């Protein structure tokens, strides 16, 4: 198992320490999972369906308790707005227009409409939806809804952005486009991102660290560093490096899945 240092090397934003999670129905979703997320890291959580990626992400966000182990925040517990979360579905309020949806995190913090106007516009500009503030979610395409959801996560200027397979439901062209946009934003702002995906290509293209997870119980099987230079673009997608990294990640993923099958056979 390769030890990979955090890319930026300037401390961790958050660490999972020996975290286990058992649901009340007895499912052991995570077992002894440890993971450091460094400042400015773009970490991908890659694993087969049901291996506990969402569970891990929700635990980092504080949306679920751990059964054992802790989530450690070296700079102190996150405050309101320190965490941005993008769900697998856009999760917008259908009764509210784009502006009101993006305003929501700030609104819950007591910010009035007039004070947030600039912040909301800025967030919408970032995701390329500057002119759509007045549109309702039903008037938007799937990709546009996802962008709104990302703008909403960005509007509080979070310390860490957690994304749970945000583009999984989109077609490949839109997904590539949003991948590029996300990457450009990250290159410009160097946020800390944890990005859940089950696409090997997506994880290689975007992140500087790939955390491969194994299933039942979910745990970290392997970590792969990816120091391909930024900015990355179509050139990177067609490069040798990219193909090589994809093969490595894919092998790691298969190894993790085989490990699970052999285990299951042993216990059966």
């Amino acid at each position, binding site marked *: 198992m390769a030890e990979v240092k955090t890319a930026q090397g300037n401390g961790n934003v958050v660490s999972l320490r020996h975290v286990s999670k058992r649901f009340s129905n007895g499912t052991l979703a995570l077992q002894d999972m440890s993971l450091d997320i460094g400042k400015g890291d773009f970490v991908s959580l890659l694993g087969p369906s049901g291996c506990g990626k969402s569970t891990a992400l*929700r635990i980092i*966000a*504080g*949306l679920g308790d751990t059964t054992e182990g802790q989530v450690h925040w070296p700079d102190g517990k996150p405050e*309101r*707005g320190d*965490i941005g*979360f993008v*769900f697998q*579905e856009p*999760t917008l*309020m*259908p*009764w*509210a227009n784009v502006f009101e949806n993006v305003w*929501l*995190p700030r*609104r*819950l*913090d007591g910010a009035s409409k007039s004070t947030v106007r600039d912040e909301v516009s800025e967030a919408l500009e970032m995701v390329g939806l500057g*002119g*759509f503030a007045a*549109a*309702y*979610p*039903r*008037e*938007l*395409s799937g990709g*546009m809804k996802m962008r709104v959801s990302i703008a909403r996560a960005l509007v*509080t200027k979070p310390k860490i952005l957690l994304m749970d397979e945000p583009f999984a439901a989109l077609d490949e062209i839109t997904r590539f486009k949003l991948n590029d946009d996300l990457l450009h934003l990250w290159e410009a702002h160097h946020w800390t991102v944890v990005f859940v995906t089950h696409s090997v290509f997506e994880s290689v293209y975007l992140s500087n660290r790939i955390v491969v997870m194994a299933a039942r119980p979910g745990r970290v099987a392997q970590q792969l560093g990816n120091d391909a230079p930024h900015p990355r673009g179509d050139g990177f997608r067609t490069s040798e490096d990219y193909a090589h990294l994809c093969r490595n990640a894919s092998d790691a993923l298969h190894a993790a899945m085989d490990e699970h099958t052999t285990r299951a056979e042993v216990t059966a």
Partner: protein
Amino acid sequence: MNVSPTDPAGGTGPRPAEAAGSRSSKAGNMTSALEETALKSGPDLRAAAERRDRWLRIILPVVILTSAILGWEALVRIQEIPHYILPAPSLIMETLVKDWAVLSGSLITTLQITFAALAVAVAGGVGLAVLFTQSKWVEISFFPFAVILQVTPIIAIAPLILIYVDSIPVALLICAWIVAFFPILSNTTLGLNSADHNLRNLFQLYGASRWQTLWHLQLPAAMPYFLGGLKIAGGLALIGAIVAEFAAGSAGRGAGLAYRILESGYRLNIPRMFAALLLISVTGILIFLTFSLLSHLMLRKWHESAIKREN
């Protein structure tokens, strides 16, 4: 050529006219261009079919209803049915005009009770639903009462209520309230609890208070359910008021439409009975239409039920 309602060019992309509009995105232009070529020969036929559909929707029921009334009129005239057995529609209308002074007074009484009961049902139903969602213990404790009130036929409790409550209007109000209350309570409770799970998580993530979650998430999510309940409750409040009036059988100036029906029955004034009946039906229909319109106006921006789908 394609005149069927499923049109391949429309697709599921953004609707250019609404979503993109003047922002004129690339995708918008492409879609409209596609639409144009695909439907070159289609739009006339399709528009014509749509127009015909719209007219038929209005004309058909009107024609059927009119012919039924004319048939009734003809039957009464040809068979020379005496008006104390079956009055002709023309006589009913005549009576309605002639007795308007009496009937309108009763109509107002019935309407007052109906709407007062409905108002209390809305306040009570929504209030209790909010309490229910705030604490499951409150719900567990009080839900049985709501169910008992709902399943007991109002006609069976009305006499009791009339005995216990001195003021007849108040007794009538209570009866109408009992029937109108439940659909609002149960629908609103369901609506408050059906807010999207991920949205709830989002509110939790941003540290929303109970009050904020209720106001910004649960109440809007419950709106379609509440409005559905209101549509049912409006009709039920009228029925409750009428049933209670029957049970009370009270006379005097403040008597409602049900009393007019009873009274006309005793006096064999069948045309007036029909006139009162007509008023009750029309009131019921108007109440339903009003709440349907209200529901449409409140939901048209976002809820599936009120959106005209353009594909």
